């Protein structure tokens, strides 16, 4: 066999290997977390761990409920704030804006996505927390500002780039014939968008939202800096909360001598991983269906 052919085979094989390695990482991470969380699952039922509010590691009580609620609520606030604004921006950029403005906005959005999350966190401490504190005063709800709402606002900002850019891409894949078909019947621009463009792009936009959700759900450092980190179920948006990622980042590596503590934390990491992967997968499967059309 010629040397060139051997090289060809070698390169193909090595690429397969690289792909296999990269892809197996997800499984390896998941497997590692699973093995480490077995000890606590042997002692307590998963159901009990998820629904108990008692978090007293020294007494051997590991209830994840406040953390799960904290994660869900902070994510929900973020999505409520982000989704309408992001969708309207994407629609404007895709359907109304001049193409130069669209390109400029694309660059801005990409920069927003690339800002390290610790910077968002710092900005949150400097701007968002005092703002929420003031808002609390104004509404007669005393708060330090380190709260669910502050976390939600920061997450909304952080999830925006992905929601905007994915929905913009999806809207741009709707063929111009779709708009022509509606406009040629005498619809207004908005009617064409509402009845034809958005209907056509619905699944894609849904995946954009899910991707944003996954991003917000797993975001750690920025939230940790401003959400207050009190392991209690919050009763209002001005209360502090303690989402799962923050729990892990704050506690892993400390007080590891407490029995089962390590295992409990890694179980919560596994839960986080599974939820975020599930959302990502749903989003990508939906997007794949959009692309196939």
């Amino acid at each position, binding site marked *: 066999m010629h040397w060139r052919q051997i090289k060809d085979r070698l390169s193909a094989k090595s690429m397969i290997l690289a792909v296999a390695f990269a892809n197996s990482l997800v499984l390896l991470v998941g497997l590692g977390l699973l093995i480490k969380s077995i000890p606590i699952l042997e002692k307590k039922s998963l159901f009990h761990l998820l629904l108990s509010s008692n978090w007293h590691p020294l007494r051997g009580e590991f209830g994840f409920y406040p953390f799960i609620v904290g994660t869900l609520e902070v994510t929900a606030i973020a999505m409520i704030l982000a989704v309408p604004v992001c969708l309207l921006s994407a629609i404007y950029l895709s359907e109304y804006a001049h193409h130069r403005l669209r390109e400029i906005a694309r660059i801005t959005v990409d920069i927003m996505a690339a800002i390290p999350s610790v910077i968002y966190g710092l900005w949150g401490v400097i701007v968002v927390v005092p703002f929420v504190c003031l808002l609390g005063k104004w509404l007669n709800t005393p708060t330090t500002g380190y709260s669910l709402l502050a976390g939600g606002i920061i997450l909304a900002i952080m999830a925006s780039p992905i929601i905007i850019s994915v929905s913009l891409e999806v809207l741009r894949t709707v063929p111009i*014939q779709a708009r*022509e*078909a509606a406009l*040629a*019947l005498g619809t207004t621009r908005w009617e064409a968008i509402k*009845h034809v463009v958005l209907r056509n792009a619905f699944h894609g936009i849904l995946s954009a939202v899910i991707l944003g959700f996954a991003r917000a759900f797993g975001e750690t450092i920025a939230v940790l800096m401003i959400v207050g980190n009190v392991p209690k179920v919050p009763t209002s948006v001005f209360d502090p909360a303690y989402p799962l990622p923050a729990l892990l980042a704050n506690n892993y590596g400390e007080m590891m001598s407490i029995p089962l503590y390590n295992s409990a934390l890694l179980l919560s990491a596994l839960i986080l991983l599974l939820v975020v992967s599930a959302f990502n997968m749903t989003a990508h499967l939906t997007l794949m269906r959009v692309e196939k059309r």
Partner: protein
Amino acid sequence: MPHISLSNLMVAYGNQKVLQNITVDIPNNQITAIIGPSGCGKTTLLKTLNRLVDLYDEIRVEGEVRIDGADIYDPKADLLNLRKKVGFLSQKPYPLPMSIHDNITFGPRIHRMNRKELLDQIQELEKHIPIDSLCPNGRQEETRHSKTHEMAYLVEYYLRLAGLWEEVRERLHAPAAQLSIGQQQRLALARALAVEPEVILADEPTSALDPISAQLIEKQFKTLKNHYTIVVVTHILRQARRIADYVIFLYLGELVEHGPAEQFFSSPRDERTRAYISGEIS
């Protein structure tokens, strides 16, 4: 008075002129074919007639396009009414993402036509093209009593007018995307007719279709021309010979020659027309 009259029309994308010096009247109730080599501005000319060119960035239109006497590029022109009056068929049919039935009713619903307006519209049209003349196998019982439901009657009437009814009568509520591409084009025709236009613009309406569907569309056009003014862009010379009553020949953005089809094909005046018709240039 002609519906459509162009004078000194110039269209440019950015700095590139695609059409210049177009002055022509398009005759009423005839099929006018716009022919010419690809890239000569046929589609652009067609889309200036219902201002679909507005969708393109950096488009510039100068000169006058008058439809029923009103300049459609006047800043105060009623764009929605214009597009209602001037229907459009694209090269590749695009079924709206809804059922066959809703594709037809979409236009009337958007224009918020009430029951009486709908009935008036159909009655007026029926004076010219009675529904019985559209039913080769005789009309079925159901159509008569469905006349009480004006939307159902409207859907049937326009689907028959576009020659699609027999193929879809059993599945009106199926998604329109399930139809074959030939059926989709006839659906697009029915959908355009349902807002009761006076003019129908068609951009190479048969180029994506199989020969049988193409023939069906041509046949419908010949039926419809008695009541509508039809403008067809085509790059198929034989199609222009088959259906056109009037021909506009464009070459590199210029209007080279226009005239009644018979005269145009038998005794062209311009050298370029002669060369195009004989196949020396294409």
